[in-house]
């Protein structure tokens, strides 16, 4: 039986990696992957809490999050492809048309 602390610890570490990745990487696809990582870190925490308190609601949430994440990836990748077709680049620093 894995204690709850370990689960939360892993979740926090994964979430942190996701945040740092999303903030620092320039490649849009990697940023999307980092966001995916954050979502799954949350999923892990939810499952952990769900098991610790014998409450099924957490697992239902996880299914929700997975669904939303799938939709988000579909939209996100669509945007990336559109961007690449126009700019031949997936670097976020090249996308700065709306600045002062």
């Amino acid at each position, binding site marked *: 039986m894995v204690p709850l602390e370990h689960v939360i610890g892993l979740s926090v570490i994964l979430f942190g990696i996701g*945040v740092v990745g*999303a*903030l*620092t990487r320039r490649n849009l696809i990697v*940023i999307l992957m980092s966001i995916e990582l954050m979502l799954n870190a949350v999923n892990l925490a939810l499952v952990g809490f769900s098991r610790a308190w014998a409450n099924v609601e957490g697992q239902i949430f996880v299914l929700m999050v997975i669904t939303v994440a799938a939709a988000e990836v579909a939209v996100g990748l669509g945007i990336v492809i559109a961007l690449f077709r126009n700019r031949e680049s997936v670097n*976020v*620093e090249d*996308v*700065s*048309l*709306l*600045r*002062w």
Partner: protein
Amino acid sequence: MVDGDTTLLRWIVLLPGLGAAVHGVMLGLLRREAPRWFVVAVSCGAVGVAFLLSCAALVQLLGRPEEGRLLLDEAYTWFGAGSFHAELAFQLDALSAVMTLVVTGVGFLIHVYSVGYMADDHRDDGGFQRFFCYLNLFTCAMLLLVLGDNLLVMFLGWEGVGLCSYLLIGFWYSDRWNAFCGSKAFIVNRIGDFGFLIGIFLLVWALRDAGVTSIAFREIEAGFGALADRTVALPGWLGFLPGAPEWRLATLVGLCLFLGACGKSAQIPLYTWLPDAMAGPTPVSALIHAATMVTAGVYMVCRLSFLYEAAPGAAATVAWTGGLTALFAATIAIAQTDIKKVLAYSTVSQLGYMFVAAGCGAYGAAIFHLGTHAFFKALLFLGSGAVILAMHHEQDTDKMGGLRRLAPRTHAVFLIAVLAIAGFPPLSGFFSKDEILLSAWTAEGVPGHRALWALGLGTAALTAFYMFRLHFRTFAGSLRAPREVREHVREPGSVVLVPLYVLAFFSIVAGFVGLPQVYGDLLGVSHSNSLANFLRPVLHEEHGHHVSHATEYGLAALAVVAALVGTLLAAWLYVWRPRLPARLRGALGGLFRLVRDKYYVDEAYDAAFVRPLVVTSDKVLFRVVDAGLIDGVAVNGTAHAVRGFASRALKYAHSGLTQGYLLVMLLGTLAVVGWLVR
């Protein structure tokens, strides 16, 4: 169901309202004018059935014992606030029964007449139906006013008739002058309504202390005994008034409500709107500005007779205002040439008579004159409408004359009305005017009541003079119109004339409803004054008429002599010596112009109130407050400030770095979470 409850009354009010709603929906939502037969059927039908229902209600009322003569119809509780509550309820007692019959009866005749009068009106699209929509709405509001069982329902009707008056005066709105007259009537009435509202507020405020939580007339009356002697402190700036700083509540409320009556019933100082209200179509002048709406003030004073009985000061003010208005308006009427203007000033004058009676405590006489006046003044207006139709919308009597041969039937009914208003026996005006003069003669409670009586007598002579002047200038002599009009003068058709015959009949006989006992004794009829007997349980009338029969005959004879003098003078000036008036005008130049120009009261009001108000509104309120402060500082100033700040500083937040936004989002989320788990 309590004894005396009924659901009949609400239908009397509702039917004309439904008629107006039908027309309003067709015109406003469907945007298509109905065929005329439909309009006529709905509007005349609604008022006609309302009249029949009123008769049925009267029969029901008369079937009840004399002390319990009250029909009550509580539709629902309109609103309640704390312990205070106001019902949407209607009551029919003797007073409102008389008023309801006058409103629906005369109203129905005028509706029928309007069918003929408005038939050739093509000034705008949908005008025919719009006219009847307003007319029905007016009838509904007026019935609300007279049948309402509390002050709030009465006020609702009071405002409703004011609105309809505005709409109908400005009915031919494409002419700016008509629209202006409508606005004038509305605004002058607002001044009066301000007083009326203050009166209601004062009454409600004081009644709460007496433990009365409703403003139904019966409950006010029941609770008023405890309040009658209560005093109210006046604000400091009113310290110059006699009796300050403390006034009796009854006096204060009475005066406030009377200010409302002054506005609605066109008394000094708020009478100026009524002559200008003649800009509306003639049936409107007959229905609203002669027979019904303008008498609402008299009705209100009579309805609150208990209040004015407890406030001699207010009652005296009512009487003297009425007396002065009667004389003042009568003198103006002498020099007017517009046929409707003469009638308008005559209405102001006759309303003054009614207030004399009401102020002298003879509420029955006031209502009696109200009823007879409704018949003969409606007849005069409708007759003048027939003349105007015959003359192809010419209103100036300078261009009339000799219509006796061209429009003989109109001439006959008009003469009846003139005789009635001049007060010749045995027509209706004689009896009601006599009652009023008698009440002024005997009103010991009013200071200077004999002078008031003399005013009334002088007004009677003037009334006879200007009415016969109008009659002779219109019907006698030869036609002064230009040739092209002269060839087309013809009497209007029977739709217009039949209502005139009916009104003429009532102008002759209506006086016998309130035949004073002194004549009853002569004819061997006991309780001949059936109107007064009918009204007595409702009105708080002092029975101070302890004068001998000889005095009564003497007063009546004097009134008839006064009327004769006026008539003969008019005949002398306008029939026998037709050149004399012009020479008289020349001799009396300044005085004549003063009277013809209505004593320059309109001009004085214009200079004293209207112009300063308009100038202040334009120069200060519009240019400084609205354009400067609100538009300049508040609206555009805010926009400029935001634009300046954003363009100088805020735009740098928009860096174009997606991850910068992401960082801000993260920090924001952290801050929110941190605040939540703190």
